[in-house]
């Protein structure tokens, strides 16, 4: 059986691996989005006391400053004394929490790109802080956030491949199976895998850009 037959036969398993990667990606991006947005809002509009701000800063610094592979090991092996966690769960948690730290900074820059006068004007018109954020600041910040957010999306897709070190059988690991059971063909197999990652990346980014165009207001921000 030559390598192309093997690839054809095992293609469903590569797709299964891609599926695992996508579920991992979506889960970690959701955790990152929710937590990241919360961190950003608290940093910008929350109480300015050290009690609130320092832990947020510490969280963001720690998760941005430690290699993800070490986080994966810490969450999978280190936490096992505290609670039982599956390899997939550990990967979602480690990568999601890290993504939250990154996304908080994406959102921070987007919110800060809205001129501060708008907040003052909204408050002067009698809007509460929450209402002003929701109705005035957020819609403008969202447009600015999508561009940098495509970066986060793209890099997280590729980082999902690291989850194999704790036993999550995703696309890269499936590729390893083919390579080792056929004793080689590294170039061919990884070329196919690279193509799969690339297509996923392109599709995701195209959707995000389309969303960006949809949100765009003619004449605004130009």
């Amino acid at each position, binding site marked *: 059986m030559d390598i192309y037959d093997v690839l054809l036969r095992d293609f469903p398993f590569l797709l299964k691996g891609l599926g695992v990667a996508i579920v991992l990606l979506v889960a970690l991006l959701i955790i990152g989005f929710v937590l990241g947005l919360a961190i950003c809002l608290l940093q910008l509009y929350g109480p300015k006391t050290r009690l609130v701000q320092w832990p947020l800063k510490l969280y963001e610094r720690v998760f941005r400053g430690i290699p993800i592979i070490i986080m994966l090991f810490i969450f999978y092996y280190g936490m096992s004394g505290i609670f039982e966690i599956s390899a997939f769960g550990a990967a979602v948690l480690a990568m999601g929490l890290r993504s939250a730290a990154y996304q908080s900074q994406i959102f921070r820059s987007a919110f800060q790109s809205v001129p501060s006068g708008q907040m003052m004007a909204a408050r002067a018109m009698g809007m509460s802080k929450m209402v002003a954020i929701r109705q005035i600041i957020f*819609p403008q910040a969202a447009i600015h956030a999508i561009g940098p957010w495509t970066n986060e999306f793209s890099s997280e897709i590729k980082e999902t491949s690291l989850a194999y070190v704790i036993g999550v059988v995703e696309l890269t690991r499936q590729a390893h199976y083919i390579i*080792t059971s056929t004793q080689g063909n590294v170039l061919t197999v990884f070329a196919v895998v690279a193509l799969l990652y690339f297509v996923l990346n392109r599709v995701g980014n195209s959707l995000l850009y389309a969303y960006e165009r949809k949100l765009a207001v003619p004449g605004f921000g130009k």
Partner: protein
Amino acid sequence: MKAIRKSLLPALMGTMVLGGCLTTTAFAQESYTVGVEASFPPWAYVEGGDFKGIAIDAMEAIADEMGIEIEFQDMPFPSLIPALAAEKIDILATGLTVTEERSRNIDFTIPWWETNDVVLVPEDSELNVFSAVCCGARVGVQGGSSQQAWMEENVVNTTDIDVELAKYDNYVTAVDDMGVGRISSVIVDDTSAQEYINAGKPVKMAGKIFIRAPLALAVTKDDPQGILGDLNKGILAIYESGEWEEIVHEYIPDVSVPTIPGHMPDFVDTYQKPVAGLPEHGNE
């Protein structure tokens, strides 16, 4: 307003995902998780979506013998021993070499195989076992493997032979890297080496290093599940019934199968007499 409502949905989903990850697994032992490195033919690999290999088939035979359910979990080799130590897996079944350092962290079953190491060089190379591992050579080994430990103990750290170890995730990439010329030789066990040569890789054996390394299964230190004795009995049972030889010959035809239990090194505490499950065996 619309935008914020939309963001509530992901928030809910996020909590659900988080909750899902943290649910504890059932406490009752329904089946045992067997950790394997599935990129290590002929011991364990995946072909067409199924686990295959000597360790896989033998483990299934032993599980039948013991009357337990097992489930395979694949992990890269360097993660397997930590996973066993952290009780993420219950049994480790791969071409696992018995070493003194490992025996401090995990408990070995009786040896079921014996390997020697081989120095692999490219087919057209004129290096011999001595010239391949000296004089500024870069030598490939699998990270965390017994070959790496042996090289560090006997060559790199104890002699002034100028050798640099290149550590790989698995041996297939090491052998490919040698083909490209990034390293001049690869040190690997003889079973795997034969596998590469049979697969038509352009490599040959420059020579053997006779270390008589036993391979075995392993469980978490101090055997919290109490399965070491049954595993030992199972290994001996499939050996005596001839099933073991059949399995081995399916993957490596014509190889002479070492007797079980083979040589049990003194430094392994689980090899002190009486060995769990097999009280008549063991070192005095």
